[in-house]
């Protein structure tokens, strides 16, 4: 069953077209990443499905579309762009307003504050919070009321590495609980680590969508995909010289003691490389095939 179905969504801002005929579906339980460079339309798309932006064309629906959208939004946890709270109220008082709007029990407020490590500061005014604390409070707000669907737009903005890792852990925990998550980000590492599905946008156009590896292997330039291997031996310079002569190798780069070998996908296997090195008098200390990163695939698709 699809949690969200988007059909031909178009959004114009005066002369600018922010989204052009975007369609995809989000299956229940998926961690769905929406990827794209700045200005690609990620936030506009999330703004439309959360009801804050009017759509210029197309339709969208949650589940079978039978329930009013504002009622469904009470069962969602949403962090859209920036944390939006009343600065003269404390974290607790702000979440009390959210709880009243959602119609959920305010007794759950301490739990969500504990989850983002803000319980000790719950009675401090929002305006006294650091950027990272504001972001964590927004995530706490999104988790309030045990939502079925969680929509997060750049959730790690302003967080330190520990905070980023914590958010990633929360997302994985939510996914394990069977919640459906929509995650917009331009941090590819973040998406690669947590998402099961992905939609890639560029200038408002949907380039690819579906299960993460399938979606990324599609696209015009997928045929030119490159495989990278990392090799180590006692004499890295000799190793680099030797493997340059191997048929199919397109590039060899020496990075410290590691030789990075690039070849066209499917032309060389690790066994062939190992045998070639051994036949040429080099015993490898390490050989690892490095799958192509999401970053380079993303850059290829959005170039």
């Amino acid at each position, binding site marked *: 069953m699809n949690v969200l179905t988007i059909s031909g969504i178009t959004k114009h801002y005066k002369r600018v077209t922010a989204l052009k005929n975007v369609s995809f579906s989000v299956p229940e339980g998926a961690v769905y990443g929406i990827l794209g460079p700045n200005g690609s339309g990620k936030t506009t798309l999330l703004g439309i499905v*959360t*009801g*804050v*932006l*009017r759509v210029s064309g197309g339709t969208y629906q949650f589940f079978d579309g039978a329930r*009013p*959208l*504002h*009622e469904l*939004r*009470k069962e969602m946890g*949403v962090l*859209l762009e*920036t944390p*939006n*709270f*009343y*600065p*003269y*109220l404390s974290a607790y*008082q702000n979440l*009390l*307003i*959210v709880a*009243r*709007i*959602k*119609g959920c029990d305010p007794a759950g407020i301490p739990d969500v504050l504990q989850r983002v490590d803000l319980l000790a500061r719950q009675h401090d005014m929002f305006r006294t919070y650091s950027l990272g604390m504001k972001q964590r409070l927004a995530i706490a*707000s999104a988790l309030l009321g045990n939502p079925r669907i969680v929509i997060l737009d750049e959730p790690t903005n302003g967080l330190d590495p520990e905070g980023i890792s914590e958010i990633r852990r929360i997302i994985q925990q939510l996914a394990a609980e069977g919640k459906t998550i929509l995650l917009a980000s331009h941090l590819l590492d973040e998406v690669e680590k947590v998402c099961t599905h992905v939609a890639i946008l560029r200038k408002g156009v949907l380039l690819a969508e579906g299960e993460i590896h399938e979606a990324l292997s599609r696209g015009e330039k997928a045929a030119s995909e490159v495989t990278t291997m990392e090799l180590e031996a006692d004499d890295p310079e000799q190793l680099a010289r030797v493997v340059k002569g191997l048929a199919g190798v397109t590039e060899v780069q020496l990075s410290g003691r590691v030789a990075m070998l690039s070849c066209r996908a499917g032309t060389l296997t690790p066994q062939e490389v190992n045998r070639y090195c051994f036949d040429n008098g080099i015993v490898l200390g390490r050989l690892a095939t490095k799958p192509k990163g999401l970053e380079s695939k993303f850059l290829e698709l959005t170039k």
Partner: protein
Amino acid sequence: MIHLIHIEILKLRRNPSFLILLALFVLSVVGVNYVAAEIVNGNKELEKVIKFTFPEVWKSVAYIASYVLVIPGLMVIMHTCAEYTYRTHRQNIIDGLSRDQYITAKVLFVLGLALFSSGVTFVVAWFIGSLSGAPFSFEGCKYMGYFFIHAVMFLGLALLFALFLKRSAITIGIFVTYWLVIENVAEKYLCKLDDFGQLVPLGSSEHLLALDAYRIVSLVHLMPERFYLSAAVVYIVACYAACYCRYRKQNL
């Protein structure tokens, strides 16, 4: 409805600007009317223009308090524009309020403020009238009802301006200019064409409260009260309908 009022109370009960302005409004209504009564009571010449004894005190206090309504007007503008500044209005929608519920909450806030202002004005009129030593009378108490109608119009217009302009400073500037200058100029110009020119949006309900002396000085040809009342009701309905339309169509 109660749910929406509760949400607005949660937003406002710890808002220092709101609480300070509320206190200033009460002090101003009490202070201005008390000082005016002190000056007028016993002065035969001034008592020909305005009286602070029963039954005229209801009309006099309502008329003077109508100028102090600018303070609740500021409260409406600041509260509404702050939601745009903090972007909490869109967060409220994201969290599950419908657009109609959001604007209904604001309308209820405005109506509540109009009711509170009318209540304060009623108590002050009673108090000032009692100070004069004249026997208590409810005669002329209808002006408290007219004050409420004027407050609903005045504060509703402040809400509409805030929904369109979104920034506190510019909204306050334009609203006050409209109230004190633009509408008066328009009324004067339109009255040259026809007496119905008096029936401008704020002017209609203001004329329900205006003292006879003011009307004579401003050379307004008096119309029957029902004209002002009907026009005020039409403007109120139009103003609040415009608030709903504006918010329904807005990108947040």
